């Protein structure tokens, strides 16, 4: 849109058409006092602080709601305006009895000084957690309110302190409504509302319930946006002012939120979402906002440990490293060694780990937990598009007109992306949810398809069939951009909607309606996650998703795409870095002679050509005695992998097992040596988030105890084992080497990231701006490839002995194996145990009541947990998580593998459930 020229306070100002007077002023660096306006929110016009005088407009229009027009003449600071503002503010302040606001000493006073006005401690701004950040005070200064003439009227409300994390003191609330609006407009939780009216008006919840009961997700958005001290982090209430700030990347999920850490005396005081970071635009979820206490947990490992006579004994680094080097040396070059890398660690560390396995140990046996989450996306999308990653961006979701969310409980697992979906739906986008479980997004959906667990190929191909039957396919896109369409079309013959209805349990009318909605509402984005990938036909599922998007031309465009939501903070990056048995960084095949030679030259060694073992295969090989030593960094397979009993047997057979981690966990107990690593807050490097955005991780705190960074440890070990090319000055230098060898990362460097913020790969050269959307002109592999698929049922179906299906799910309040989130007290206050979700119909049959202890048995093991009777889980199905080792679904899950991706079938296995015979103590 064209720019508009206007005059503000005698200055000529340019602003884009459609901007408000306030935005125009702010862009020009002019200050207008505001209390209710905020860049993340829609214009509101509630507080009337931003009143102006505008020629030819009557009254005093508010700058935050008045759009600019050409030639407008605006005054923002006349004596009359200031007097009006003073009157309004004074009225506001009668209910905000903090006399420091009008006191000239406020900048000088410390919390311990004696107050000349005899203001009591609880009413002094200097002891308010928002001191020096209070926007109310800023406004009061600007409009020069020297003294209150009106009497104060104390609301006398008790502080609301029953919630986890939060204290709410509504005696300080000025009813600007920012918290209400952000929670509704942007977060989508709508946990707060204006209640009552007139002098009783207050912000609150329905029936005065706690925030938790009101549906709050403790994302902290209201805290961060409140201009006063009404809502604050309890832990930060009396903490004083931070002495420094560090911006870094969240260590939890693949959304890759940018966090601003406020630090005092080397302790993190509080965390705020970075406003202009494209990954999260200021938003966070509870884990990023409140989940970082684990960093300073007393349970952190702080010294190397060597197992002697079955006991771990503290050791020096020298002892530990020389022992490891001596023990690992015999396995060089004989393929009896495996390295397990980590999706929690940085790109640089993953690169070094795979280089260590290949160049030092001479084996391609390197893998990590991505095998368990998105390896089917890597194989599936790699085959049909040529790039295995999310095609579009987090923020781009706001441009989508339609979403198909399948096998992703987005608001729990990728909360900030979930917020975007909800925000788009609020703005009119359509949402189709396909999930056996009633996930929170079902509430926002136009259509909810409740397919049977494991029937996704049938459902997705049924949707494709319905699209073709209704003639809604994008013929031009198919003809120009894709191949193998005819074979695909022929394969649809097997998926008439009657058959699909039988296989999926979804009514054919709903399938047809969903197909029509998805195919006709453009751009449409598909979001998927573990519900699609974690299956013995995961690769087929992924290809079925890809077929659907190609069929409707929903690729290479803003707001469209195929979006595998990657789980861990750096699971995209650790795959990109080649911590996989068949590829180097950038998915360069180890079997390709030219690529191998390139790496041999760069690293000065000869490299093995045969692809190595995948994660589950490694444990099988260990069980069979073919793998004898494992070096593992930052993983916990004794909780995260399928059929844990088998993993345990395998680990016990190892001749030598080294772990490095930040905590003791269920797996490293079996190690011979444990090395203490630093947390994300104590090291530098990069993570690549789900939208392929490479972002900096910045050191914020000194290393705890003797902990060392993972990259240092790997390099030190490599050097002791005679490895060349491990003498790096720091992560930036590691990235330089990696970028030289990896075309898609070729233009990325720490220096650029520091200057420009995150970069999305492919970014081949130093002047390339990065690639927000994949496949815009052509697919990475040239043409998009349609795949003809056949339906295969899950490998283990319910039968007379094991009549129920177990599926797995995640909690919003916990992460993965719980090693980090279970160290955060208030998270466990909200969700403190793993439950077995069971449908009321099945519960009645089995005489199980809500809260009863139950035993769940599969062909592989037995788990105990308490039952949660809920209609969210469909009849015939139970749901468990793997956050809680003592109530872990993975004791039961099926290690049957997808033939291509080697991903295990976590999402379905057959079980039986019975009320526990003996009561298990909590």
């Amino acid at each position: 849109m064209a720019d508009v020229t206007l005059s503000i306070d005698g200055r000529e100002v340019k602003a884009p058409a459609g901007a408000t007077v306030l935005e125009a002023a702010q862009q020009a660096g002019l200050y207008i006092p505001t209390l209710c306006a905020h860049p993340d929110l829609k214009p509101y016009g509630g507080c009337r602080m931003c009143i102006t005088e505008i020629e030819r407009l009557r009254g005093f229009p508010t700058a935050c709601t008045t759009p600019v027009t050409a030639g407008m003449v605006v005054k923002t600071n006349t004596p009359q305006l200031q007097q009006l503002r003073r009157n309004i503010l004074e009225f506001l302040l009668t209910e905000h009895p903090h006399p420091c606001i009008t006191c000239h000493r406020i900048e000088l006073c410390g919390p311990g000084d004696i107050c000349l006005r005899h203001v009591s401690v609880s009413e002094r701004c200097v002891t308010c957690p928002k001191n020096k950040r209070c926007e109310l005070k800023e406004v009061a200064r600007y409009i020069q309110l020297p003294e209150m003439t009106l009497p104060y009227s104390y609301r006398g409300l008790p502080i609301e302190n029953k919630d986890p994390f939060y204290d709410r003191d509504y005696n300080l609330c000025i009813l600007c409504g920012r918290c209400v609006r952000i929670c509704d407009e942007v977060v989508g939780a709508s946990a707060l509302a204006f209640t009552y009216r007139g002098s009783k008006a207050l912000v609150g919840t329905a029936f005065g319930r706690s925030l938790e009961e009101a549906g709050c997700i403790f994302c902290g958005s209201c805290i961060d946006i409140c201009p006063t001290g009404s809502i604050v982090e309890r832990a930060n209430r009396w903490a004083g002012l931070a002495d420094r700030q560090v911006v870094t990347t969240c260590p939890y999920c693949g959304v890759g939120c940018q966090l601003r850490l406020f630090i005092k005396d080397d302790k993190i005081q509080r965390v705020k979402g970075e406003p202009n970071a494209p990954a999260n635009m200021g938003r966070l979820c509870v884990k990023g906002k409140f989940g970082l206490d684990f960093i300073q947990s007393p349970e952190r490992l702080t010294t190397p440990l060597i197992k002697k006579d079955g006991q771990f004994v503290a050791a020096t680094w020298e002892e530990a490293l020389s022992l490891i080097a001596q023990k690992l040396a015999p396995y060089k070059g004989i393929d009896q060694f495996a390295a397990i890398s980590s999706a929690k660690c940085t790109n640089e560390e993953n690169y070094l780990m795979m280089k260590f396995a290949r160049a030092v140990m001479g084996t391609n046996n390197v893998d990590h937990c991505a095998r368990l989450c998105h390896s089917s996306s890597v194989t599936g999308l790699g085959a049909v598009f040529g790039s295995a990653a999310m095609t579009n961006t987090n923020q781009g979701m706001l441009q989508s007109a339609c979403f198909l969310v399948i096998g992703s409980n987005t608001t729990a697992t990728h909360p900030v992306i979930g917020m975007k979906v909800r925000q788009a739906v609020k703005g009119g986008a359509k949402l189709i949810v396909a999930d056996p479980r009633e996930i929170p997004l079902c509430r926002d959906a136009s259509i909810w398809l409740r397919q049977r667990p494991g029937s996704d190929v049938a459902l997705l191909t049924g949707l494709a069939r319905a699209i073709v039957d209704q003639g809604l396919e994008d013929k031009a896109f198919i003809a120009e951009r894709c191949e193998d369409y005819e074979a695909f079309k022929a394969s649809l013959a097997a998926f008439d909607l009657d058959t699909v209805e039988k296989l999926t349990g979804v009514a054919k009318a709903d399938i047809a309606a969903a197909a029509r909605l998805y195919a006709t509402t453009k751009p449409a984005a598909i979001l998927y996650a573990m519900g699609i990938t974690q299956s013995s036909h995961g690769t087929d599922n992924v290809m079925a998703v890809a077929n659907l998007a190609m069929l409707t031309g929903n690729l290479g465009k803003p707001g469209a795409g195929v979006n595998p939501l990657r789980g861990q903070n750096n699971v995209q990056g650790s795959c990109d870095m080649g911590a996989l048995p068949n590829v180097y960084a950038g998915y360069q095949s180890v079997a390709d002679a030219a690529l191998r030679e390139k790496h041999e030259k760069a690293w000065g060694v000869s490299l093995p050509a045969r692809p190595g073992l995948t994660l589950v295969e490694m444990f099988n090989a260990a069980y069979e005695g073919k793998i004898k030593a494992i070096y593992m960094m930052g993983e916990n397979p004794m909780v995260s992998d399928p059929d844990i009993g088998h993993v345990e047997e395998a680990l016990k057979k190892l001749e030598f097992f080294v772990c490095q981690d930040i905590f003791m966990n269920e797996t490293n107990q079996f190690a011979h040596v444990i090395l203490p690593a630093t947390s994300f807050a104590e090291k530098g490097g990069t993570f690549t988030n789900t939208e392929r955005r490479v972002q900096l991780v910045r050191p914020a705190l000194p290393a705890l105890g003797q902990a060392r960074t993972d990259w240092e440890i790997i390099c030190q070990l490599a050097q002791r084992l005679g490895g060349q090319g491990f003498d790096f000055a720091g992560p930036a230098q590691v990235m330089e080497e990696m970028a030289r060898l990896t075309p898609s990362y070729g233009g990325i460097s720490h220096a650029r990231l520091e200057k420009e913020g995150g970069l999305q790969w492919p970014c081949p050269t130093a002047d390339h701006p990065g690639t927000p959307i994949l496949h815009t002109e052509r697919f990475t592999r040239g043409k998009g490839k349609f795949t003809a698929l056949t339906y295969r049922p899950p490998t283990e179906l319910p039968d007379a002995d094991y009549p129920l299906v177990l599926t797995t799910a995640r909690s919003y309040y916990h992460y993965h194996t719980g090693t980090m989130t279970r160290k955060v007290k208030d998270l466990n206050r909200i969700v403190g145990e793993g439950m077995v979700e069971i449908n009321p119909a099945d519960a009645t049959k089995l005489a199980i009541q809500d809260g009863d202890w139950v035993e769940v048995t599969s062909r592989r093991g037995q788990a105990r947990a308490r039952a949660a009777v809920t209609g969210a889980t469909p009849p015939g199905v139970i749901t468990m998580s793997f956050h809680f080792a003592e109530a872990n679904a993975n004791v039961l899950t099926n290690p049957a593998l997808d033939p291509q991706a080697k991903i295990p079938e976590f999402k379905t296995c057959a079980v039986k459930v019975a009320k526990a015979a003996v009561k298990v103590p909590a």
Partner: protein
Amino acid sequence: MASATDSIKEQMKELLIPYKGERGALIPILQKTQEKLGYLPEEAVEEIAKFLHISRNQIFGVMTFYAQFRLHPTGKNVVRVCRGTACHVKGGHRILLEVEKRLGVKEGQTTPDLNYTLETVACIGACALAPTMVINEETHGEMTMKKVEELFGDASKGDHHA
């Protein structure tokens, strides 16, 4: 309790049939609900929230904005304790606290057996008799703790929570 909740659920299901699940229907639905149930119980609000795809909190905001909506059922007897100046000077606040204690409810609430609704008023125009209160239509003046006990002594057995 569960059965009461279930019955509200059932009644709400029926009540909501003629409406479209659109936000604009909120006020008419609230009115209809109050007509049917006498007030707007939390369970009913929950059902309306699900039906309209909006949060309970937002509905609560709307229903407390308009004076026409009641959050509590009205009891058989309505007790209004005066909070006017004269009564205040003569200890009306303590009378209110005592009545609250006896009935086991706060101002604006109704006893679980639906016998009493407790409210306050600004001044009932009988300042000479301060402190005062009105039970249904009948004025009681020169209230004392003792008198409160005489009036509500029975109620305190079954209802108070303290």
